[in-house]
C-alpha cells in the first residue's frame, strides 16, 4: 500500500492499495494502485471486497462475472499479534436467497499465506472469468514490484488440501500456500468447499495442520474458476516491533481478551473447546442435530475426558502468542505423542462430533481430519449431515442416502467421503437445498441458507442478522448464556450496536481473539495504526467504518433477493421448543416478532443509499 496521508478517515484517497487483476479466460494480468474510497477500503478485507461485489449484478454463483477476490487487511503481515488474515470474497454457491440469487460472502483464515501475500507487495487479487484447464497462481516479489504468474496444475488434481500444499512446497520451499481440496474441484456437486492456508508448523512437520477459510463455499468458487492453489513467495518482512505494538501485543496476551483461548499450561482457558463445559451447564451443547436432551453425553468430549486417551498440544500460527490450536494426536502406550489427528476447536468438534451423535474423541478427530483434507467447511458439512441423520431418525422406513443415523461412525464417514469426492450433491449442496427437496425444512439448521455454528439458536437470535453465517459475523452468541440478558432492550442494543462490531476483524487483518469482546474500535488498535502507519484515526472513525461495512452486507442481502421473512431461525426452535435448555426462552414467536420490529427500526433507515 502507499500512504500519502496520515488521516485515512478524512482523506482515504490519499491511500492506495496494490491490486492485481487476472483474467483467467484470456490470461491477461494487470496491476493498479487503486485509491481508497473510504476507511473501509483502507482497512481492507470484506470492508473493501463487498463494495466491489455490490457493483456487480450476479444471478448465479457459478458464472464468469462473479469474481473471486483474495485480499488482506491493513494490518496483515505487520508485527501486531494475529496479523495473518487472508480474505476470500465472492458471491456464494451455498448461501443464497429463496429466489435463487447468491449472497455475497467472505471467508477468512490465518496461517502464514496472508502475510506472505502482503510481503510480495500485493494487497488484493481479483480473479475474473474462469480458466479452461486447472491452474495454480504464483504471486512473488521482485525488484519491480509484485509479479503474478499462472501455471498449469494438472499434477495437483485430485489431491487433498494438505497433499497439494506438500506437492507445491517441493517447488517453492520459501513460499506459503492456499489450496482447495477435492471438494472444491467438484464444485458442481459441492458448494461448501473451503480454502486451506498453510502454517509454518505444517510445512515443517509435514502434518496436515492447515488453517481454513471455510465459510460460504469460497473454495468451490475457486474450484469453479479452475484455480487449485495460490502460492505466495516472498522473504519474511515482519517489520520492527515498536514499543506501542509491543504494548498492544502484551495486552492481547496478558489482558482478558485472549485469556480464554490460551493454553491451560500457560494459565489460559484452553481454547474455544472450553465452551463445551460452559454450555453443558445449560444443556445447550448441540446434540443430534441441535436437540440437546438434558443428559451428560456431551461430557464425553470434555477436554478432561479426551486427554486421558489422546495427546493434546497447544500450537500457534507464525509469531502468535495466543497459541489457539489444540492439536490432538494419538497417545502411544509409553505416553509419547503418536500420529497427528486433528485440531479440536469448538465448532468442528461439536458439529462433527456430539451433534452427529459421535461421542468418541478418536472418531470425531478422524471426521474432522477427513473434512479438512477434502477441503470442506466443517460447519456446513456437519450441519447438513446432522440434518440427514435427523431425517432418517424420523423416517426409519424411508431413509435417505446410506441410511445413516446418529452415532453411526462408519456411515457418517462414508457420507463425508462421498460429499468430498463430489458424489453426494444432497450433502455437498447444503442443508437448505436438501431440506427443501425433502419438503421438511423446520429442522434444517441454517439461517439465510448458511448453516449455523455450534451455538443453539435458542440462545442466539442474533444469527438472524449475521451477514456471513454463524456467530462470527454477529457476536451475540454469549449475550444470553454468558451475560444473562433475556430482555428485548439488551438484545436490540446488542444486535444493533455492540455485537456487530465483531466483523471489524474481518477487515483489518487480525484474528477475533485479538479482542473478541470489544472489536477493533479500541485504543489498542488506534495505537497500533499510529505506530505502524502514522495514522491519526479515532475509535469513532473505526467504529463508523465497521458499522457501514456491516450494514452494506445487510443491504447486499436485500439486493440479492432476500425478503424479511427469510431473516429467521429454523422453525423447530419456535414450533417445538426444547424443554431441556435451562435458559429463559428468548425465541418465542412473540419475542422474535418484537425483536425483529425493533432491530429493523434501527437498521432500515441506515440501509438507504448504502449501495448507491
Amino acid at each position, binding site marked *: 500500500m502507499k500512504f500519502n496521508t496520515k488521516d485515512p478517515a478524512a482523506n482515504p484517497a490519499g491511500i492506495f492499495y496494490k491490486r492485481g487483476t487476472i483474467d483467467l479466460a484470456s490470461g491477461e494480468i494487470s496491476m493498479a494502485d487503486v485509491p481508497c474510497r473510504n476507511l473501509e477500503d483502507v482497512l481492507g478485507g470484506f470492508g473493501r471486497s463487498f463494495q466491489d461485489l455490490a457493483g456487480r449484478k450476479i444471478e448465479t454463483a457459478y458464472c464468469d462475472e462473479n469474481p473471486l477476490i483474495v485480499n488482506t487487511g491493513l494490518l496483515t503481515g505487520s508485527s501486531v499479534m494475529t496479523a495473518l488474515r487472508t480474505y476470500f470474497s465472492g458471491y456464494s454457491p451455498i448461501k443464497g436467497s429463496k429466489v435463487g440469487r447468491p449472497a455475497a460472502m467472505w471467508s477468512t483464515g490465518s496461517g502464514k499465506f496472508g502475510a506472505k501475500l502482503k510481503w510480495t507487495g500485493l494487497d488484493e487479487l481479483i480473479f475474473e472469468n474462469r480458466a479452461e484447464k486447472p491452474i495454480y497462481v504464483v504471486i512473488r516479489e521482485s525488484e519491480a514490484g509484485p509479479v503474478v504468474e499462472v501455471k498449469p496444475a494438472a499434477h495437483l488434481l485430485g489431491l487433498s488440501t494438505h497433499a497439494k500444499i506438500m506437492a507445491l512446497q517441493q517447488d517453492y520451499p520459501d513460499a506459503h500456500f492456499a489450496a482447495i481440496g477435492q471438494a472444491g474441484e467438484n464444485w458442481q456437486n459441492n458448494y461448501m468447499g473451503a480454502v486451506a492456508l498453510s502454517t509454518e508448523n505444517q510445512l515443517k512437520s509435514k502434518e496436515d495442520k492447515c488453517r481454513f477459510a471455510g465459510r460460504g463455499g469460497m473454495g468451490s468458487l475457486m474450484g469453479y474458476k479452475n484455480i487449485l492453489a495460490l502460492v505466495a513467495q516472498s522473504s519474511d518482512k515482519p517489520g520492527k516491533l515498536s514499543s506501542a505494538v509491543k504494548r498492544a501485543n502484551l495486552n492481547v496476551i496478558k489482558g*482478558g481478551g485472549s485469556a*480464554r483461548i490460551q493454553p491451560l499450561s500457560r494459565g489460559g*482457558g484452553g*481454547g474455544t473447546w472450553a*465452551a463445551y463445559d460452559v454450555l453443558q*451447564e445449560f444443556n445447550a451443547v448441540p446434540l443430534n442435530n441441535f436437540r440437546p436432551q438434558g443428559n451428560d453425553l456431551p461430557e464425553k468430549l470434555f477436554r478432561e475426558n479426551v486427554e486421558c486417551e489422546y495427546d493434546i498440544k497447544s500450537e500457534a500460527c507464525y509469531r502468535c502468542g495466543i497459541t*489457539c490450536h489444540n492439536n490432538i494426536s494419538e497417545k502411544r502406550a509409553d505416553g509419547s505423542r503418536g500420529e497427528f489427528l486433528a485440531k479440536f476447536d469448538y465448532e468442528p468438534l461439536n458439529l462433527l462430533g456430539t451433534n452427529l451423535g459421535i461421542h468418541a474423541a478418536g472418531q470425531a478427530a478422524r471426521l474432522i481430519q477427513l473434512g479438512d483434507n477434502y477441503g470442506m467447511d466443517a460447519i456446513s458439512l456437519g450441519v447438513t449431515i446432522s440434518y440427514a441423520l435427523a431425517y432418517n431418525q424420523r423416517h426409519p422406513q424411508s431413509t435417505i442416502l446410506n441410511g445413516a443415523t446418529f452415532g453411526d461412525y462408519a456411515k457418517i464417514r462414508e457420507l463425508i467421503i462421498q460429499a468430498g469426492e463430489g458424489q453426494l450433491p444432497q450433502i455437498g449442496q447444503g442443508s437448505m437445498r436438501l431440506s427443501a427437496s425433502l419438503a421438511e425444512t423446520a429442522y434444517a439448521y441454517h439461517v439465510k441458507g448458511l448453516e449455523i455454528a455450534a451455538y443453539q439458536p435458542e440462545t442466539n437470535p442474533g444469527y438472524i442478522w449475521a451477514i456471513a453465517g454463524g456467530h462470527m459475523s454477529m457476536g451475540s452468541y454469549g449475550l444470553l448464556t454468558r*451475560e*444473562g440478558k433475556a430482555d428485548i432492550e439488551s438484545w436490540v442494543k446488542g444486535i444493533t450496536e455492540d455485537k456487530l462490531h465483531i466483523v471489524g476483524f474481518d477487515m483489518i487483518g487480525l484474528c477475533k*481473539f485479538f479482542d473478541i469482546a470489544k472489536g477493533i474500535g479500541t485504543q489498542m488498535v488506534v495505537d497500533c495504526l499510529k505506530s505502524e502507519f502514522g495514522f491519526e484515526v479515532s475509535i469513532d472513525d473505526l467504529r463508523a467504518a465497521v458499522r457501514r461495512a456491516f450494514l452494506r452486507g445487510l443491504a447486499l442481502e436485500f439486493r440479492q433477493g432476500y425478503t424479511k421473512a427469510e431473516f429467521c431461525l429454523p422453525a423447530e426452535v419456535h414450533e417445538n421448543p426444547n424443554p431441556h435448555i435451562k435458559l429463559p426462552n428468548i425465541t418465542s414467536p412473540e419475542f422474535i416478532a418484537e425483536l425483529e420490529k425493533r432491530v429493523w427500526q434501527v437498521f432500515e433507515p441506515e440501509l438507504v443509499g448504502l449501495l448507491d
Partner: protein
Amino acid sequence: MKINVKLIGLFQTGRFKQQELDYPVDTKVQDVFADLQLPQQHFGFALINGIHAARDAVLAEGDHLVLLPLLGGG
C-alpha cells in the same frame, strides 16, 4: 451458612467439581471466588440457583452457586 458450590471447566483443576461449603452470612459471589483462589482473568459469570448473578450478589443459606469461566467463540 451452607452454600453448594459447583465449579465448571478449568476451575475444577486442583479443586473439586461440586461441594457444600460453609461461609459466613453476607458472603458475596466474589468472596467465594477469592476464597477458592480461582484465577481472576478467567471469571466469566456466576449462577445462583440457575439465575445469572453479579459478582457482588449476596448469597443466602442453601444457595446453589455455579462459577463459570469465560465463553469464547470459534
